[in-house]
């Protein structure tokens, strides 16, 4: 190679960087790596001000399969670096994935140029760095980090085998990820770094004629907490039991929603636990149109509904800080049906509550359940529908959270306390807030497939769920 490749550039880079690239097994940047990287960037800064950086450095090992055969095994890694320069109240930022010395210098200079074009905010004053105590959630798993590709291949073969033996077709994806996330910002007071792992497995089993489809999935920070064999069984059973569905009329039905179906409805609710600042101060902005505007302290759901975030729950761990260093803490959003908290940022806490601490919503949640099993719910139902999951959701009215979407991968009619037949999928038009006020029974909560943020959700039985049209998709 001539002298112009990045390889030769790196011969002039600091020893820590050389060490990084000299170690092929190093899957992502360590805390020391990130701190050295940012220290290096700071040296290039000109014109005073502050340099703030975020780093997400990740490795991912993946396996996808289709029609009972692996279709792609992949191993990918990347370093995502955000560099922000704040000079006299103006901020400029760039993102890059190149971390050699010359690229860092270029990134810092580009951020400074962009700060020149950013609007200066004369009201901006920086509080002294808060000394937050951060939680240490359990979001790391050694076996997940160390999982060899062969284990993924064996897992997939074991998942596919029962479907293939039954003459069905299996499609799915499993992946493990290990990453380090750093926030290095003078305004935070000290460098923050969190290493974490993630794992997911999901599959769809279809019959070759396309008359039935079943799905199962799980996600966790820890691969060893996922049971691929159980998922394989579940998806196959659902596929076989869902074949040759009959058409039923849309209308209001008592529904038994499996946890994955409940999650699809409740997740948008959790997403709306934000904006206390706007909810209290805004009278004509978009926020007064949000469902929880001015409802703090009011009953918004059935008294059996409690929804809470707890990063220390081993099944609900998340990175314990935001990209501007705000701490993620336990909070109960809805307590026995009453809206008790909405999220707010530190600026709001300082100005309005004379408090230092924000309430940050990281979307991870546990919804409390009950003791009924899905079988109990079925036995107690004269006529109703059992729903595996929802798909293709669209929000129609953000104020009431009215949504439309379709059932998928298993819908059954219940008559006189037993499942009587598989039925064709239906489109619904319904608000989760209505469902949370129409609950008849709740089951024990369990971890659902939610790779972006962890969720523990119960199955539930609710009345008068609104299905608005039939669809032919299977």
């Amino acid at each position, binding site marked *: *190679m*001539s002298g*112009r*490749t990045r390889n030769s550039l*790196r011969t002039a880079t600091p020893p820590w960087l050389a060490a990084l*690239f000299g170690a*092929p097994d190093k899957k992502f940047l360590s805390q020391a790596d990130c701190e050295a990287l940012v220290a290096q960037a700071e040296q290039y800064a000109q014109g005073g001000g502050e340099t703030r950086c975020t780093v997400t450095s990740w490795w*991912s090992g993946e396996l*996808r399969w289709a029609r*009972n*055969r*692996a*279709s*792609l*095994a*992949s*191993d*990918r*890694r*990347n370093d995502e670096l955000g560099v922000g320069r704040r000079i006299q109240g103006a901020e*400029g*930022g*760039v*993102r*890059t*994935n190149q971390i050699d*010395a*010359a690229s860092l*210098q*270029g990134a810092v*200079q*580009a951020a400074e140029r*962009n700060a020149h074009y*950013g*609007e200066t905010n004369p009201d901006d004053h920086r509080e002294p760095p808060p000394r937050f105590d951060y939680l240490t959630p359990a979001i790391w798993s050694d076996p997940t980090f160390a999982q060899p*590709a062969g284990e993924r*291949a064996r897992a997939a073969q074991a998942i596919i085998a029962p479907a293939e033996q039954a003459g069905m077709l299996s499609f*799915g*994806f499993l*992946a493990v990820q290990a990453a380090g996330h750093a926030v290095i910002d003078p305004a935070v007071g000290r460098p923050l770094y969190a290493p974490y792992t993630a794992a997911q497995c999901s599959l*769809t089993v*279809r019959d070759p004629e*396309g008359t039935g*489809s079943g799905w199962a999935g799980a996600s966790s920070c820890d691969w060893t907490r996922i049971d691929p064999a159980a998922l394989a069984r579940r998806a196959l059973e659902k596929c076989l039991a869902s074949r040759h569905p009959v058409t039923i009329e849309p209308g*209001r039905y008592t529904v038994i929603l499996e946890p994955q179906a409940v999650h699809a409805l409740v997740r948008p609710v959790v997403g709306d636990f934000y904006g206390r600042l706007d909810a209290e101060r805004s009278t004509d902005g978009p926020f007064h149109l949000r469902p929880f505007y001015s409802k703090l302290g009011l009953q918004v759901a059935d008294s059996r509904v409690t929804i809470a975030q707890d990063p220390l729950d081993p099944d609900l761990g998340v990175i314990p800080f935001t990209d501007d260093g705000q701490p993620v803490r336990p909070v109960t959003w809805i307590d026995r049906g009453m809206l008790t908290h909405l999220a707010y940022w530190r600026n709001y806490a300082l100005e309005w509550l004379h408090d230092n601490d924000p309430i940050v919503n990281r979307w991870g949640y546990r919804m409390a359940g009950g003791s009924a099993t899905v079988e109990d719910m079925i036995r107690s139902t004269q006529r109703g529908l059992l729903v595996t999951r929802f*798909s*293709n959701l*669209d929000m*129609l*009215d953000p104020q009431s959270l009215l949504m439309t979407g379709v059932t998928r991968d298993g819908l059954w009619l219940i008559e006189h306390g037993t499942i009587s037949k598989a039925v064709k999928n239906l*489109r619904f*038009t*319904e608000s989760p807030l209505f469902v949370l006020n129409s609950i008849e029974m709740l089951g024990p909560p369990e971890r659902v497939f939610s790779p972006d943020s962890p969720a523990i959700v119960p199955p539930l039985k609710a009345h008068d769920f*609104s299905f*608005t*049209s039939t*669809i*032919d*998709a*299977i």
Partner: protein
Amino acid sequence: MTQTRRTFVITGTVAAVAAAAPPWLRRTGVLEPGSPREVPRITEPDVRALALRAVDAARSAGAAYADVRLTHTYDRKISPREGVRDVEEMTVGVRALVKGYWGFAASPAWTADEMVRLGHEAVDLAKVNASGQPRVVDLAPVSAHDAGHWETPLRIDPFSVPVDEILDFHQAFTVYARENFPGVRALSECGFTRQEKAFASTAGAFVTQALTKIGAGLGIFVPNAPAGEINNTGSDLLPLAARGWEYVRDNEGALRAEIPRLIAQLEADWRLPWRPVDVGRYDLVLDAAGMAELVDATLGTATELDRALGYEANADGTSYLDDPVAMLGTLRVASPLVTLTGTRSTPGGLATVQWDDEGVRPDDFTLVKDGVLTDYQTTREAAGWLQEAYAKRGLTPRSHGCANAQSALYASLLFPPNLRLEPGQPDVSLEDLLAGLDRGVYVRGLGLGLDFQQRSGWSRGGLFYEVKGGKRVARWQHAGLLFRTTELWKALTALGGPGSFRWAPAQRAKGEPAQQAAYSVGAVPARFKPQTIIDSWRKA
């Protein structure tokens, strides 16, 4: 307000199409020549050496076939309100085939050692799976030893234009609106992306490309609009397209003229009453943008061959065109007026390239001819799946060149080419179509939701007008369209002519892990026999 295609141009596509930063170091003068950062341009021999090294490593490790892609992506967004935002990303990915199994390894490091590591890793991953059940991959032929470089045709590289000049250009619209249209605020902004990419394979090809995309948006806001009225709208005059800065700059006058036009359009709407939707069956007219949405969400999705064979079953879903061999050339999917083609050669198209991500030179092909399904979107592997069907019709399997990827960090996947709904004859305009509506519904800004096999759909956005005697007489609240896909397409009775043809940007998210690719969809307005109009907020 629902998201329109206009906001999509600025906030959606540009932001998501990945990366990018300006060749901020070498082409905008931030760093002087001789700066320490000397990333090789994609056409330089160093890149070829890196690429061949990766391919050689995979071959020597036992790959029956391997390819490598290097991508260098720059993205810049410039807005008078938010300033300048730059993103740059360099990635490399090696894909290897061993006994019918694919392995893929990717990273951000363009180094000689990394090429070897990735080549070996890709082969190792393929071998791990190859120990199981046998799998057959028939790659459709590609012209070996293809070589060359291709760039999006353009006059002015947007990354060479000083940021100040672009900011001034956009700021002028705000000033113009303030001075000429009191009470109206206007904001204009733009974003552009360049992806340089290199491709090499064990088949002997080495090709490089530099693909540039740019779009500009203009929005207006009328704070003192009547209470309860829509007070903002945007222009779709300059949607994201594969063009240079001249595409924006040379349209300054036309973009300025959008301000009074958009104000007039809002005021015309305000004069029409809002009424509760009168649900029922109505003749329907969709504008070109709505038809592009329909094409994209239905036929454009369903004719992805991998999807039709179930490959997306565990992700976004499959296709209603699910028996490709039997359906090809026989299945009526639309009115005889409908012909749909795929093209990666149309000037300005977001999917327009010289080579796809498997080194194939794409051809223009017909997906639907006179209402009958005639082909599917294919890659080299997918074309192999159609051998039987092609043979029956006396055709040689050939990839249509639909392999694409967000960047080299993702394995290439089948993504739509630019899609083109052929205009009708003679030259019928949207207004002509509306004039023929005695009693019906016209929808502007239609957004669609579809089920996971595109068999049925519903509107999730759009302004529904009641039309009587060819005139818009009212707007309907919460109105929605509910349809079965093939019934809707077969109910099409008239198409706009060539003068009403418009390109719109589109983007598909697909795969596991999910990735995105952009393409353009061109369409004309159309009229349909009666369709079901519902109150979309009404529960059962």
